């Protein structure tokens, strides 16, 4: 049996509540606006009708986004939500420009001389529409606006909270749009209160400019977030840095060589190349550890899911060659204290400073030419201060025992 909480956090239930709120707002505003002959209130009511259509579109988008993944859509259709974010973000940017213009025009109307001069340069500026109200309609306007502001803020918070917890970007975007409506209504309220109670009718215009900036910022953020996901932008440098750190905390990880991230719906996708010295037997645990910690981080960072693709690589081998002068006698071998006492030269191939292959050669007539031909970078002798050889670096071997030098 479903609990009340599960109903109230169901995205469809939330969006139908939003539709209901807009329907009530529209009915009240259009009805009362027409009755008291207030085009401002009635106009706002018609705007709310458009909001209903938007909420219905969001319901459709959520329905599509929730459809399971298929062979053709292996990550599902979650990205459709970000088209909505992009569209709502764009509409908020346009709305903010319109609102800023209206507020600017209102400010200009206070000084007709400046208004006239500005309009001479910018003739496309809209005309100023002063508040048309009287003492009889004031209580209606105030009560409808206060109710509408409260409903907008409460419902937007609710929408955003549920949208975030369910990972529905379109719902979050619609919630932001509802909050912007509430902010605009709040400015209307400030204008009415300023004119009728405090005799400062211009108050709403500077406040309007501030609100226009806030709406523009919200619109920009929504558009940017939508565009980033649709264009598969990385999930962000901060997240990537944290992912690298999480990987490096896992035993066995030497480095994170390559990290590509992007977002599909609310799912973060990470493609990583991990450098490790470990071999096949250990990689399953290494993979488990890296996936566990990266997943933990991403889920704590508000992503609803993650896809992690790991590839393991060995470190760059840094191949080079060294040699030891040795005395060999049958199966026994020791490092010679001098070139003169040596019978053999052991040529060692090194990878990551580890001897991976050795070859025992009889000491050649021309040792330096031999070592140079073999591309040996250093010759070791068991001597505290080995004498120099022209054309080759000579170093001290701390031991004469091959097994202590990784040669057996």
């Amino acid at each position, binding site marked *: 049996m479903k609990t009340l909480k599960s109903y109230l956090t169901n995205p469809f239930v939330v969006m139908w509540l939003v539709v209901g709120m807009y329907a009530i707002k529209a009915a009240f505003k259009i009805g009362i606006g027409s009755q008291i002959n207030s085009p401002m209130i009635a106009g706002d009511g018609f705007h709310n009708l458009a909001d209903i259509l938007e909420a219905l579109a969001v319901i459709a988008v959520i329905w599509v986004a929730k459809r399971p993944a298929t062979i053709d859509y292996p990550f599902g259709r979650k990205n459709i939500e970000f088209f909505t974010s992009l569209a709502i973000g764009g509409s908020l940017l346009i709305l903010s420009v319109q609102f800023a213009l209206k507020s600017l025009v209102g400010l200009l109307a206070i000084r007709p001389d400046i208004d006239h001069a500005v309009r001479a340069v910018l003739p496309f500026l809209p005309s100023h529409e002063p508040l048309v109200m009287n003492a009889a309609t004031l209580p209606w306007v105030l009560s409808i606006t206060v109710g509408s502001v409260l409903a907008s803020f409460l419902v937007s918070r609710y929408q955003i909270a549920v949208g975030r917890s369910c990972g529905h970007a379109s719902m979050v975007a619609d919630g932001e749009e509802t909050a912007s409506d509430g902010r605009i209504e709040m400015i209307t309220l400030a204008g009415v209160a300023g004119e009728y109670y405090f005799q400062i009718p211009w108050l709403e215009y500077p406040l309007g400019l501030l609100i226009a900036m806030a709406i523009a910022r919200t619109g920009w953020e929504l558009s940017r977030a939508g565009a980033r996901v649709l264009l598969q932008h990385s999930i962000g440098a901060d997240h990537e840095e944290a992912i690298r750190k999480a990987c490096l905390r896992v035993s066995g990880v030497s480095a994170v060589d390559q990290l590509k991230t992007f977002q599909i719906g609310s799912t973060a996708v990470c493609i990583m190349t991990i450098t490790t010295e470990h071999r096949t037997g250990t990689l399953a645990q290494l993979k488990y550890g890296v996936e566990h910690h990266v997943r933990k981080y991403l889920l704590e960072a508000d992503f609803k899911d993650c896809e992690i693709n790991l590839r393991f690589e060995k470190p760059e081998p840094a191949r080079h060659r060294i040699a030891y002068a040795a005395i060999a006698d049958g199966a026994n*071998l*020791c490092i010679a*204290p001098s070139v003169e006492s040596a019978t053999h030269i052991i040529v060692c191939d090194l990878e990551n400073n580890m001897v991976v292959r050795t070859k025992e050669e009889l000491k050649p007539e021309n040792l330096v030419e031999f070592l140079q031909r073999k591309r040996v970078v250093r010759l070791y002798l068991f001597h505290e201060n080995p004498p120099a050889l022209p054309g080759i670096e000579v170093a001290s071997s701390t*031991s004469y*025992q091959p097994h202590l030098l990784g040669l057996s």
Partner: protein
Amino acid sequence: MTEITCIYNRTAEGRRLLNFAADLWRRLQCATPLNVAIVEDVGTTALMTTHKSESRASELALIGSDVLLKTGLADASVRLSDRIEAELSAAELKLIVDQNLAFRRDDLSILYPARELSLLERGDGPILVPFGDGTSVLPAAAAAFELAAGLSLPVVLYHTTWVDPTVHSPAPPDHMCLSANSIHAQLLVQAAAMGVTVHSVIETADDVVEGLLNCAMRESACLIVMSRSAKTRIGCYVSQTLTKTPVPLLALASKRRKAA
């Protein structure tokens, strides 16, 4: 008291082991010097045509300088020896830090560093002590608690149990057998007595080794401590874990094997 031995090897891996051992020695503030064992191959020494004893002395001097240079330790903090034998007694923990020896010798207590540069390279993760229903875990737990107290680390006690079909509870602890419960209780008492913070992870993993290693990875454990069982002949969990672990593992010798 902990005594640490490292087997000298003038290779990249040997250098890493030496630094791992020296770092652990520093962190534990060991009272005894870091023991660096230089194993002598008599056949090789015999080849040194002249002054065999001088060669050996010269080798020890060169290795001594090399060890001090690489570890940054003072002369008095390092002891060069030709012994690698170590033993575990109730009074002290003697361990050998080596990358390969744990695969060959089950009669020695060996800390396998799993190619890590130092024990706490990845942070102050806990020490993981897997336990079953036998008492073989007790020396491992004692060693783990001693190390945890010395390094100020918490301990995770890990147990995986088979699902008891007669128990309907989904909680893994409800499926533990009586002896495992008793061992668990003993370990908790032992940890409390040593002032070590402990938490337990009990689960019903499909595979014991995979389960304990996954737990070590989830918990970001810095070390796994296990005792070799005196009774197990085939399917030793320590040997299996050694082949799969990316986390350092301290494998403690069993008493039976040492006596043998």
